[in-house]
Structure formats: structure tokens, C-alpha cells
């Protein structure tokens, strides 16, 4: 078993630590126009109010890190991504996960960021490794490594582990500390393949055992195309956390997701004196009361 590693992200003076013994770090996924028509329309119109609201709400709900994606078909991401990040940083002070496949946009984003960001993402393809890793190194950022190779998404757990190994090897070979690499084993929908979830959990266990690195994933993917997604997502979230996932990219505004994360942390001994759980309960009661007051 490899030793569990600690990834530290920061913005300004504020640090967030990701480690298997610490509470799970939810990376808020909402600031992303993909599949969210309202965000898409707002960004296209140059209106950032929805971005600021999303940032505030997610941090309030307990996301210590926010993912920021500004990929709009046909738009100038190199200009837009840093702009969206500035809007986010004007209302919250949490570290950001910079979500882009465009290396120019990534560099522009890293330039305006003061601290240690998390890059989302590099994958096992040569083109991606060569474009993204030098930027991670130059700007001292942590980086998410996606288990995708030139041949696509590997169909077996062993092959995904191998891609993770390749990314880790290349990054550390360039002088990027291994604790700055976060692996994404890829969560695929179980609606198209009922074994997809079990496969992902297997990869989480294997990567954890072999490298001890932190693990993320877009865990809500597993329920795409299924009814009652939130229950599936919650169950999968709990299992993934137990398997070794430490920083899911997820929607903290969904009560079932959030409470499952807190309850899982408690069950796995990551929540000292159960204070995380108790405080989350109190916050929920308060919000419910405020909502009642407003409607009465």
C-alpha cells in the first residue's frame, strides 16, 4: 500500500488540503455552461451575475474548491475563462479548479490566478501531456490526470491504472511533485453499461493502493440516463469515498449529495467529534427556517 498523499491548493493566503484522512473536498461543478442553457446564455450575453450566484451558493453549501469552465461553442475561451475566474474570485476566496481543454486558455487563466490552482485536466495522450504538464510545472499548479489514452477510454481497470501510471511518471519525471497529481478514473454512465460503476470503483481502489494520490471524478455521470438520479449518485458517492476518492467534482447544492458526503466522512472516521455532520445539520435547519419565514 502506498502512503496517502496530501494535495494542497491555495488562493491568496487560503489553503485547502486534500488527503484521505481529512474530510472529503467537494469541488463545486456548477460554473460550467455545458448542458446548462441558462449559464450558456448568460455568458454569451456577458452577464456574470449567475456565475457569482453559483459561486456563492456552492461555497455556502460546503464546497471548499470550485470548478470553473467557460467553454462556449464559438467563443474566445482565452479571454472568457480568466474573466469568469475573476468574477468568481470577486465574491469568494476558495481555490479554483481550472476546467479547459484549451492550453492557451489554461495559460491565460493561470496568469490571473494567485496561488496554487488545480488544472482540469491532462490525459494520457501525448498531445495533452506535452501541452498541459509544462504549464502545471511552470505555474506550480496541481493537475488532474484523466485515465484516457490515445486509444480512447480503456475498457478494463488494469488499462486505466496503466494510463494513470503513465501520467504520474511523465509528470514526476518533469519535476512535478507526485502529491500534486490527482487522478480521475472516469465515471461513465451505468445506463449504457451496468458494470461501468463497479469498474470505476475498482480503478479508484487500485490507484489508491498503488500510488496514494488523491482521486477525483465527475461522479454524477454514473446516473446519466437513469431515473431518480440523486439516489444513485448518493449511493455511488458513498462507495467511491470508501474506495478512496477524496475530491469529487459534484453539485453541493443537492441535499442528498452533500449529506451523503458528510455522512460518509463520519462513517469513515474523517469527521472529528462529528462536528462536520452536526454543523451541516444546523446549517440545513437554519436554511429551512429561513425558507419557511420567507413563505409565511
Amino acid at each position, binding site marked *: 500500500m502506498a502512503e496517502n498523499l496530501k494535495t494542497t491548493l491555495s488562493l491568496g493566503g487560503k489553503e485547502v488540503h486534500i488527503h484521505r484522512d481529512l474530510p472529503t473536498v467537494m469541488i463545486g461543478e456548477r460554473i460550467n455552461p455545458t448542458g446548462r442553457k441558462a449559464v450558456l446564455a448568460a455568458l454569451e450575453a456577458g452577464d456574470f451575475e449567475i456565475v457569482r450566484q453559483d459561486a456563492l451558493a456552492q461555497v455556502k453549501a460546503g464546497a471548499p474548491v470550485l470548478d470553473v*469552465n467557460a467553454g462556449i*461553442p464559438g467563443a474566445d475561451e482565452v479571454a472568457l475563462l480568466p474573466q469568469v475566474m475573476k468574477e468568481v474570485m470577486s465574491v469568494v476566496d476558495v481555490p479554483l479548479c481550472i476546467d479547459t481543454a484549451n492550453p492557451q486558455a489554461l495559460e491565460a487563466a493561470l496568469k490571473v490566478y494567485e496561488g496554487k490552482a488545480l488544472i482540469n485536466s491532462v490525459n494520457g495522450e501525448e498531445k495533452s501531456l506535452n501541452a498541459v504538464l509544462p504549464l502545471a510545472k511552470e505555474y506550480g499548479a496541481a493537475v488532474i490526470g484523466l485515465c484516457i489514452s490515445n486509444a480512447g477510454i480503456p475498457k478494463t481497470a488494469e488499462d486505466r491504472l496503466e494510463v494513470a501510471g503513465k501520467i504520474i511518471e511523465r509528470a514526476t519525471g518533469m519535476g512535478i511533485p507526485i502529491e500534486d497529481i490527482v487522478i480521475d478514473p472516469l465515471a461513465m454512465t451505468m445506463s449504457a453499461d451496468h458494470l461501468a460503476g463497479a469498474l470505476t470503483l475498482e480503478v479508484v481502489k487500485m490507484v489508491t493502493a498503488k500510488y496514494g494520490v488523491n482521486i477525483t471524478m465527475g461522479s454524477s455521470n454514473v446516473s446519466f440516463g437513469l431515473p431518480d438520479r440523486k439516489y444513485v449518485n448518493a449511493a455511488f458517492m458513498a462507495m467511491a469515498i470508501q474506495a478512496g476518492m477524496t475530491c469529487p467534482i459534484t453539485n453541493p447544492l443537492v441535499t442528498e449529495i452533500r449529506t451523503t458526503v458528510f455522512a460518509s466522512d463520519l462513517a469513515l472516521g474523517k469527521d472529528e467529534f462529528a462536528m462536520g455532520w452536526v454543523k451541516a445539520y444546523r446549517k440545513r435547519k437554519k436554511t429551512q427556517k429561513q425558507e419557511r419565514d420567507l413563505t409565511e
Partner: protein
Amino acid sequence: MSEVMEALYESVLEGERDDTLEYVQKSLDEGIAPDVILNKGMIDAMKEVGQLFEEGEYFVPEMLISARAMQGGMEILKPHLIESGIEPEGKIVLGTVKGDLHDIGKNLVGMMLEGAGFEVQDLGIDVAPEAFVEAITDDVDIIGLSALLTTTTFSMEATIKAIQEAGLRSKVKIMVGGAPVTADYAKKIGADGYASDAGQAAVLAQSFIEESNG
């Protein structure tokens, strides 16, 4: 509709592959014409599947097993269709554009198109614009482009441009889809249509064929 045809329709709708195989064979044994078995027994059932999916009544796995049932039935039916000179509705070349490795949405579209009676050639994922251009032979009616990343939608645009530059734009209809794609974007890059889900893609493809048949 005869009893056996009704049972066939029901088996496709329910995604009961073994039953579908049985009822296709029974229908043939009863002397029902292959094109009737195809259209009334299976394509109409798949249309209902697409509609139920669109209405939120059916879910992805149900669509998958219905398509699987129909594919099974087609294996039995195909030689009989060829023998009686029945042509497919049209031919579609399908693929996920360059730089994009997502295949689930594209596969669903392919299944629904097959379910609607089309011949489908699937070029796979990460397909270069040149590969789409090369695939446009005389019998191809429609090109379907899929992209699931905001960052690969530009490959869609590049593919349409490449088809234009090869002088083949007027030969095919182009339809696009995927999470980051919108109807506006489809129009902007010069596609002929946009479909929001796999059932819609089949409806759109049929409308293209009806249009060209005048």
C-alpha cells in the same frame, strides 16, 4: 394487425430480445411480407420507444434493450429483405468529431436510426474531418456529427467546412448533436439540423429523407 405481429411489436417495445427473434421467425413462417414485419412490427415499435424516451417515460437502458431486440430481429429478417429487394430508408454516416472520445450518445443515435430503418455506418470516435469527407459515397444521404465537449464543437465546424471544401456539401444533409450543441450553434456552423436526443435524431433523419423525396 395479426396476433403474431402485435406480439412482435410488444417484444421490441419491451426489449425482450428472445421473444423478438421468435416472433420475427413466426411472422415469416406465417407468410407476412418482410417489409411489413420490418415497418409495422419493429420500426413502428422503435418509434414508440423514441417517443416514450422523449416524454421521459422510458430511460436509456430501456432504449438500449429495445434497440438490441430489434437488431436481433434484423439479423433474421435481413436476408429476406434483400431477397425481396427492400432498400433501407437511407444511409447515414455517423461519428464523434475529432478530439472527442465520447461514444455513448453517438451509439444511442446510431441504434435509434437503425431502429428507424436506416443503414448506419459508424466511423467511431475522434473522427477527423477528412475521414467524414472520405466516407461520403454516392449512397450516403446524411452525415451525423456528435460532440460532447464545448471544446470539440469547433471540430464540428471544421468538419462541415471540410465537406464544403471537398464540394460535397450539397450531396448530404448534416445533423449535429451533443450536450454543448444548441440549435442556434447548429445553424451558425451551417448544419441542416440539430437533434436534442436520440429519438429526435431519428425523427430529423426521416424528415430529411421525406424532404428529398419531395
